[in-house]
């Protein structure tokens, strides 16, 4: 019954975008999530942690986050997510919004 924690690393193909400062975005509502993006020296890679009550979607999580990391060309970022059954569409959207916050 415990919460599931999913951890993995990934690397963007043309990793070049680094964060100036950490950012937090979102609310863990039903079907929603919050995310922290933090700069972190990872040799150009990205470290991901997802905490969620739902299990069995590991491959989809990986795919969604990798797509985001690739599109944003992120490097040296730790991504920490608290999820409450967000759909992949919502996950993509929140990640994108979190990133947009850093630019704002």
């Amino acid at each position, binding site marked *: 019954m415990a919460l599931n924690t999913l951890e993995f690393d990934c690397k963007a193909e043309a990793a070049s975008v680094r964060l100036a400062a950490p950012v937090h975005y979102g609310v863990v509502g039903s079907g929603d999530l919050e995310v922290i993006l933090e700069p972190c020296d990872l040799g150009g890679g990205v470290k991901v942690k997802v905490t969620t009550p*739902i299990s069995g979607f590991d491959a989809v999580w990986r*795919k969604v986050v990798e797509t985001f990391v690739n599109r944003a060309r992120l490097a040296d970022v730790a991504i920490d997510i608290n999820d409450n*059954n967000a*759909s992949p569409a919502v996950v993509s959207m929140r990640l994108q919004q979190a990133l947009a916050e850093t630019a704002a």
Partner: protein
Amino acid sequence: MKAERQWNTLERDTAQRMEAAARFIGPGKQVKVEDVVPLLEAVVRPGDKVNVEGNNQKQADFLAEALCKVDPAKIHDLHMVQSSVPLAAHLDVFEKGIAKKLDFAFGGPQSGRVAKFIREGKLELGAIHTYLELFGRYCLDLTPRVSLICAYEADREGNLYTGFNTEDTPVIVEATKFRKGIVIAQVNKIVDKLPRVDIPADWIDAVVQSPKPFFIEPLFTRDPGLVTERHILLAMMCLKGIYGEYGVKRINHGIGFLTSAIELLLPTYGEELGLKGKTCTQMVLNPHPTMIPAIESGWVEAIYCFGGELGMEDYVRARSDVFFTGPDGSLRSNRALAQTAGHYALDMFIGSTLQIDQYGNSSTATANRVAGFGGAPNMGCDAKGRRHSTDSWLKCGREVPSMNELIGDMPRGKRLVVQGMETFGEGRAPAFVDRLDAWKLAENAKLDLPPVMIYGDDVTHLVTEEGIAYLNRCANLDTRMAAIRAVAGYTEIGLRAKPEETKRLRDDGIVKTPEDLGIDPDTATRDRLAARNMRDLVDWSGGLYNPPARFRNW
């Protein structure tokens, strides 16, 4: 010499029944509440086709319940022919053995029981229709012998006022009465003078003032407070990539939060895109409260309604340039005419669905619920009998590469049929599936066909948060399937999309992502909505809109 044939058996049979009922019918055709069940027992005979009026809005609920109380020993094996079965009483008649067979269009809250009763052999299903299809059959092979209808008011002669919620009443009464059938009406009130006569007294056989006003469901009210950023993103894509791209003027909006979002974006984002006057000028639509800001901003020239919507009475009355209102000032909403307009005179239908398969067939059916169709399929298809042209219809047709394979070089248009939904729905259920649940339902409920709301070949555009698939631009099924995969996101079907294939489709303008459309998803925020809550709608209407109690949060 051949035997003399009786040519008026129906008429004589009706006369007999009415004679048996005469003692229950007083002056002005009025029947007392306590006499309604014996009245029904007098006029209904075993095996009759019987209509109980009701659709997804108003319901002849008192008469429906009265029909449940007749003695099944006297009255049984009825064949119910009616638009919808949303009330418990509509199914109770099958449970009690009063009715046996059902032909209908829309299941509503009882759709689970319909499936169950079919499986248990309590209910023999004729067919599931669209409204228009069923109305057509009222005039051919499914003519009701007895119809139980509802109206707001009757006068002392038995004339009826159906007013704001006219809906199915004219077509039911006309089909029944002109084939010598019997029409019994429940009304909320009997008055000296009606605001206007919608149904003349000589088409009515009996009138009862029901103990409670008839039930009516505010089915088309969407609280703007529940419109999400994802709805807004999809709505922005629709407005820019479809409404604007094709300049569609004559539109029906299926009910849902996507179309509510579109309606609420017209005065803001629509205006930014310069679309006012170029799109949404004529609509076939219930009086959606979320249309108020667009109407107030001068977007809409005319709206014809299928039915009424609770709380919109005063607003509609005060906007007679837009709505079809009678000499008394109140709306008349004739569903048969609205559906006709919806089938023939629209350039676009846009709605949402629960599931869509890899070919683009879509359905709202789940494995254990016979939900029915209502009117959507008549609007969500290309009307093959259409012969007039409009620019948007022609453009959509011109873009169909395979048109010439069927009709050579003859120009022909095509209705835009748009399905918009998020790739995952409620509870993370994928909207894109290999096989529709409709197949399972067909099996479970012993249907001849899986109930498909909109067939793949009718869908011209598919919109998800990933982008728009312009299916009308696809030359063949393979390309259509690829385009569907390209917008199916992280569903299993979407994960099968090949990046290079998707890129080709984007280059060819068959798939457009938000980026291709020049829409930044981060700007899809609720600030864009012309009204963000029910209160805003009331304010937009200048206090004319009077939301039902359950929608009032102040």
